[in-house]
């Protein structure tokens, strides 16, 4: 075991990791930050997305030791310190962008990255960007509406509805 230290949600945090310890397990087991979910464990579903040095990655497919020293933002770091939801989180609530909530941390992290790169995406761009995030409840329409709303745009009836 090796001590691994990262800046997680703005604070220096340390926990032990084996060579094979995944970033998601280091966050969940080592730091008890269980907001980041493991959905498929095969790099497909996106429930484990965190921001690694500012970019979205699937934390189930990154080794913790490999990114020792990195800056990581998890879903726990998205709301304000006083608990105020981010624009994306609030929009997910307002537009019912979740049902069971399991995929939601990854969806919020991905959507937050999208709006940072592209503040006013089209509906097609939202759907394209979220291709690596799987939701088995909502049929995606309300998620897409939530992201459109979070970008400050009108929320039209979505194309496939």
């Amino acid at each position, binding site marked *: 075991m090796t001590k691994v230290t990262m800046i997680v949600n703005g604070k220096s945090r340390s926990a032990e990791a084996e060579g094979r310890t995944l970033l998601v397990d280091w966050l969940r087991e080592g730091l008890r930050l269980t907001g980041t979910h493991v959905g498929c*464990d095969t790099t497909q579903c996106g429930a484990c997305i965190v921001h690694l040095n500012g970019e979205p990655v*699937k934390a189930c497919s990154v080794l913790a030791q490999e990114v020792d020293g990195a800056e990581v933002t998890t879903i726990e770091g998205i709301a304000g310190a006083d608990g105020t939801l981010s624009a994306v989180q609030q929009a997910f609530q307002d537009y019912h962008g979740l049902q069971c909530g399991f995929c939601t941390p990854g969806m919020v992290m991905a959507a937050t990255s999208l709006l940072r790169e592209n503040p006013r995406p089209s509906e097609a761009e939202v759907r394209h960007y979220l291709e690596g995030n799987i939701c088995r409840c909502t049929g995606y329409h309300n998620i897409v509406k939530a992201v459109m709303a979070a970008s400050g745009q009108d929320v039209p009836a979505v194309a496939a509805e």
Partner: protein
Amino acid sequence: MYDFELVKPASLQEAIEAMQAEDAQALGGGQTLLPTMKARLAMADTLVALSAIEEIKGICTDDDGRLCIGGGTTHAMVQRDCAESFPALASLAGRIGDPAVRNRGTIGGSLANNDPSACYPAAALACNATIVTQNREIAADDYFLGMFTTALEEREIVTEVRFPVPEAAHYEKFIQPASRFPLVAVFVAKYSDAVRVAVTGASSDGVFRWNEAEAALSGNFSEDAVKGLSAPDADGMISDLHGDGAYRAHLVKVMCARAVKACA
């Protein structure tokens, strides 16, 4: 995952030394290898992570005008930084997997793995790119030796890939929406003296050049030249629940015609 020792060299030289360990395996972005190891379909005593080696990352143009991409360069970097210098390649990189995968996966990892449905092998073969390792330079024509098989020796690391930039090029991908790999994809590259056509996702031998299309397009670079051809032989094409060999052979022709049209 079976246990292993993780080594994180900071330089290419350290990585070459680390790869001398018995049963050592290089780790690029880990977007294929780590899931494979988690499924216990692969294992290693020592995993040599290449992601901290800055000298094998980045993109530049050499004196011959070739686009030189470090083996550790992520798909996201190629998507962003080749948009003007080689738009067809940037477009290919931007359609691999999803945004999170593109932030980790690397061109060197993709070419070393040579998945029969991977995107980058099609670009490398269509451009006859040069695959550079710590030991030598390998022409793409000599590099791809079959499904998950390349000319790389044990312990060899892809440090750079050099692309002669075509006059016109396009990558047409018929996506398999669950995996985001191509069901079939075709990269067409037009040079002043030749047209090259590489196909991925179709053959169980991995990426290949469609010689008949190259010959037809060299005389007449048009969609009609492709439409006049018979589809390639369906024997040896991948058949699975997503499409049988005859369907894939048909898609090769359709994707090729679309790629040529998009070059115009």
